[in-house]
């Protein structure tokens, strides 16, 4: 096949003959204009248009641009890489992450003397601080009934780690001469803090005001800041950077379709970051090494990578599952007084593998098949040793014997049985249809046209699950370019936040307040407890609270009240309101604003503003307690008219659609 030819053909078929500037609302049946085609392509394949995007996609031609997006490896992405340099932990392997930012199990081992204290000075300081904190908490727990922070985010106002009160035994808050400390170089400050007695730097940092902490770390390298944060809460380094990188990539990556698809597949193979204390260390590498590399590749490779990922095996309990007749089970049965109760099968992964990852809920399997698949995957687990923290097949846990999955005999073959089942599921027509429907729901419509899904299903089966080809079929179909599809999708909160930042060309220094905003919008990152992920449809996002949070976010963003984020809107000195408003409409929405909205915004701009009070400072949520170096929240000044106008436009119904 010669792509150029096909492209030319497709362009002729789908594109646009009407004049680009013609803004009369067209009849429903009319084809999209070339301007609209460019807008539509950007709306669907990206996290939103930046001010000049529509222009450049239109001049390049929407199909050619789409083809570029389908080959992200050819697109330069150094811009986002530069920004990601501020998050150095996100480049590490799971082993390195666990070593540098020790999770609780590591500290328990350290406490029990099962592992030694690291000798490298920075690691030594971090481990010593964590150990001191661990012992302190244990002392406290012994005295009072423990309030368990259940899986999930702590409730509002509830601290993840209650800061020790005055009666708490433990290290005294050190007397530090802040003035003197601020006079020395960043590296000297860093050294001073790291060499404080274990546990004291943590107390010192926690008691500082946010602005003081900012001063303290100014001039330090990202690695140095990470080290200090790790003295306080190692887990938060990993979680915090993971969430920040997600937003930075969504906003700044040139490989927009790859990021959209990474988000899509993460949501499809959802993992909840607070499932247990270890999950963040695995989720960081899961998204980077398991999901993203396969986001546009072959589905079977993706499925297999997920099945082999420690993150999924832990999240869906498969690493707990032990064949009832396996060697491990026999051994345990002979020793009933052993530490562990008789081990057994856990069906969680097997069920979700079929229901959510491949066949779909009506995919033709029974409870019996679920149990059989669970038997197949016994032994698939995680090697928890260091170095390790990677996939391990443990034959001692594997259930012997032949299995029967959906009428097909799987001969005894250890790890190979799982590969056989994954292949069978990945190539099933039910999977092809289930995935095609889901993709069309994300990219075309909440109720995707059956003819389109049929065509995508055929491509899937013909290409043995090449995701890129399935997408290509969708992007070349008349249903994708139909007027019914144009601006028919409601943005999810993540899409809303990212598109607002892209439309305003915002500069993000620190994304902590943005990830907190997503919690308020009802879509915390990596925050779906259940394996089915977030809804791809509009309805669940239309609640009053969720809508109100959007309006609040729009106003806060445009008036620069989100710490760590700045937008530069045109200044409004002595210009005509209507003119400024029109400029804003053009840059934020490519001019796609309802006439009533236009009038209202202009009227609000011209109404003398009430003597404005100060706007409430932005707040972080409880989940961000550990983000010690998040920028200080400040009370914003009252928004000027341009900021209010831009806020109204971003909060308007027109901006909620894509």
């Amino acid at each position, binding site marked *: 096949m010669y792509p150029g030819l096909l492209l030319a053909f497709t362009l002729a078929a789908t594109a646009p003959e009407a004049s680009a500037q013609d803004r009369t609302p067209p009849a429903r049946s009319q084809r999209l204009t070339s301007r609209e085609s460019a807008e539509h392509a950007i709306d669907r394949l990206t996290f939103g248009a930046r001010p000049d995007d529509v222009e450049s996609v239109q001049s390049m031609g929407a199909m050619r641009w789409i083809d570029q997006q389908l080959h992200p490896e050819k697109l330069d992405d150094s811009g986002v890489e530069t920004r990601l340099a501020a998050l150095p932990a996100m480049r590490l392997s799971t082993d390195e992450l666990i070593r540098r930012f020790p999770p609780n199990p590591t500290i328990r081992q350290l406490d029990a003397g099962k592992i030694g204290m690291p000798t490298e000075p920075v690691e030594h300081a971090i481990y010593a601080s964590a150990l001191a904190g661990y012992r302190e908490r244990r002392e406290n727990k012994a005295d009072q009934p423990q309030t368990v922070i259940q899986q999930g985010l702590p409730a509002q106002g509830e601290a993840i780690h209650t800061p020790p009160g005055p009666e708490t035994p433990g290290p005294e808050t050190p007397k530090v001469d802040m003035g003197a400390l601020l006079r020395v170089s960043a590296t000297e400050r860093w050294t001073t803090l790291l060499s404080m007695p274990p546990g004291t730097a943590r107390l010192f940092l926690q008691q500082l005001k946010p602005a003081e902490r900012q001063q303290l770390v100014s001039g330090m390298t990202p690695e140095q800041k990470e080290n200090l944060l790790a003295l306080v809460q190692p887990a938060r380094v990993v979680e915090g950077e993971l969430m920040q990188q997600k937003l930075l990539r969504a906003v700044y990556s040139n490989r927009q379709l790859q990021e959209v698809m990474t988000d899509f597949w993460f949501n499809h193979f959802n993992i909840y970051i607070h499932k247990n204390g270890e999950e963040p260390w695995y989720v960081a590498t899961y998204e980077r090494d398991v999901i993203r590399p396969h986001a546009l590749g072959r589905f079977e490779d993706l499925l297999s990578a997920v099945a082999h990922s420690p993150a999924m095996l832990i999240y869906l309990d498969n690493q*707990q599952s032990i064949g009832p007749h396996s060697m491990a089970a026999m051994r345990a049965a002979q020793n009933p007084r052993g530490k562990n109760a008789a081990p057994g099968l856990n069906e969680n992964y097997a069920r979700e593998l079929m229901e959510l990852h491949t066949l779909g809920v009506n995919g033709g399997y029974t409870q019996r098949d679920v149990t059989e698949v669970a038997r197949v995957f016994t032994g698939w687990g995680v090697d928890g040793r260091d170095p390790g923290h990677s996939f391990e097949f443990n034959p001692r846990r594997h259930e012997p014997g032949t299995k029967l999955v959906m009428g097909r005999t799987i001969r005894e073959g250890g790890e190979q049985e799982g590969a056989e089942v994954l292949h069978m599921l990945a190539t099933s027509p039910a999977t092809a249809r289930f995935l095609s429907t889901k993709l069309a729901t994300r990219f075309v419509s909440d109720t995707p046209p059956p003819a389109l899904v049929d065509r995508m299903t055929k491509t899937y089966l013909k290409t043995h699950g090449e995701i890129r080809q399935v997408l290509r079929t969708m992007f070349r179909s008349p249903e994708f370019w139909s007027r019914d599809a144009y601006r028919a999708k409601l943005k999810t909160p993540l899409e809303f936040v990212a598109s607002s930042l892209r439309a305003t060309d915002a500069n993000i220094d620190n994304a902590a307040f943005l990830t907190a905003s997503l919690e308020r919008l009802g879509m915390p990152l990596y925050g779906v407890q259940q394996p089915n992920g977030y809804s791809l449809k509009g309805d669940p996002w239309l609640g009053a609270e969720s809508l109100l949070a959007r309006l609040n976010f729009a106003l806060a963003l445009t008036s620069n009240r989100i710490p760590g984020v700045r937008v530069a809107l045109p200044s409004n000195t002595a210009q005509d309101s209507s003119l400024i408003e029109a400029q804003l409409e053009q840059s934020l929405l490519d001019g796609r604003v309802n006439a009533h909205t236009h009038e*209202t915004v202009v009227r609000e701009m011209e109404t003398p503003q009430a003597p404005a009070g100060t706007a409430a400072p932005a707040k972080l949520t409880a989940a961000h307690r550990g983000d010690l170096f998040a920028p200080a929240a400040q009370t914003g000044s009252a928004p000027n008219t341009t900021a209010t106008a831009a806020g109204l436009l971003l909060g308007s119904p027109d901006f909620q659609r894509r």
Partner: protein
Amino acid sequence: METRRAFLKRGAMALVGTAAIPAFLTRAVLAQATTALRNRRKLVVIFQRGAADGLNIVIPHSEPSYFQMRPSIAIPREQIIDLDGFFGLHPAMQSLKPLWDQKHLALVHAAGSPDVTRSHFDAQDFMESGTPGIKATEDGWLNRALQAEDESRREVRTPFRAVALSAQMPRTLQGRIPALALDNLRDFRLAEAGSAALPATSGFETIYDQTVDTVLHSAGRETFEAIKMLESADPRKYTPAAGAVYPRGRFGESMMQIAQLLKADLGVEVAFADIGGWDHHQNEGSVNGQLADRLREFSQSLSAFWTDMGPEAEDLTVVTMSEFGRTARENGTRGTDHGHANVMFVMGGRVKGGRVYGRWPGLAPEQLNEGRDLAVTTDFRQVLAEAACKQIGAQDLDLVFPHAAITSSHFLNLLA
């Protein structure tokens, strides 16, 4: 007798009619509304998401096999709070015992869905839609329970008629009757500068009022009505009644906010809250542990709510549900896997409590569903239908639970 079609048509007309009512109900109108609504009974529905282990919550301690099947997680006999000589409560639920003794708490054991799915999502979906086995149902049973009322007689509308304490609208309340999902009452306003008079608030209201996007138009309308009503009710200043101590955590917070809303007379008729974290595949615990912690939060929240509501609790019914129970035997990881029947709690002024309702199917191997779980002997819809009918006046049970053919003869008669 009116046909279903005619009813729906009239319902739709009534809805169109609401547009004529000014969006903002002033305090005066509100006062009038609440007088009319004061005598109305209220229904609070609680979903325990993740499949709570009913056999360790209301424990059949006279079943010898209970202890055999759960060697490490069974509650020792002497620690169970006995209820009637056969069943007993988990020891972490002490705070609900007084309600049982006062006969304000009834239990329905071996209740569940006729559908056999063991998928959390399907089972929750079926329970919330109220149509087990039918995926295509678009609305939730509680929304339809409100639709079943004769709307022509409704004089005043309030956006708070149906409220869910969650960031997103739960399936249970999705549907034609507008409902409100709130995560936290205190933050429910435009943070611009704290006053409704400022440009952004009025600007947004106008923009949403004028949009041709009908979906966002109605979402905006609900939002601005709610903001204003809540502002006049001033729920930020709230102190629970003496003796009502809500536990820390999201569920306690939700129950407290439901109490606030009910006491503020905003016209709440149904409220919904959920509590997650019941999916104990491993290390479930026994007297102490993961389940015990969950149950403590669950029961303390309910008892604090009861105390907080004081005399108004007489008008209330609270019903709890969970998508399915868990396996009768503990699994290889000292937890339990997805099972079938479960226990429901029904609490309220008109509840004929102090009794465990439903037929007990037994725990002997041959009595178990598929040889592994407690069998269902009461369809969960029998309980919900009675609550919908007697508490919020839903007479058309075919509308609430289509294809179920539930009539009042199926009620357990646990409400007076």
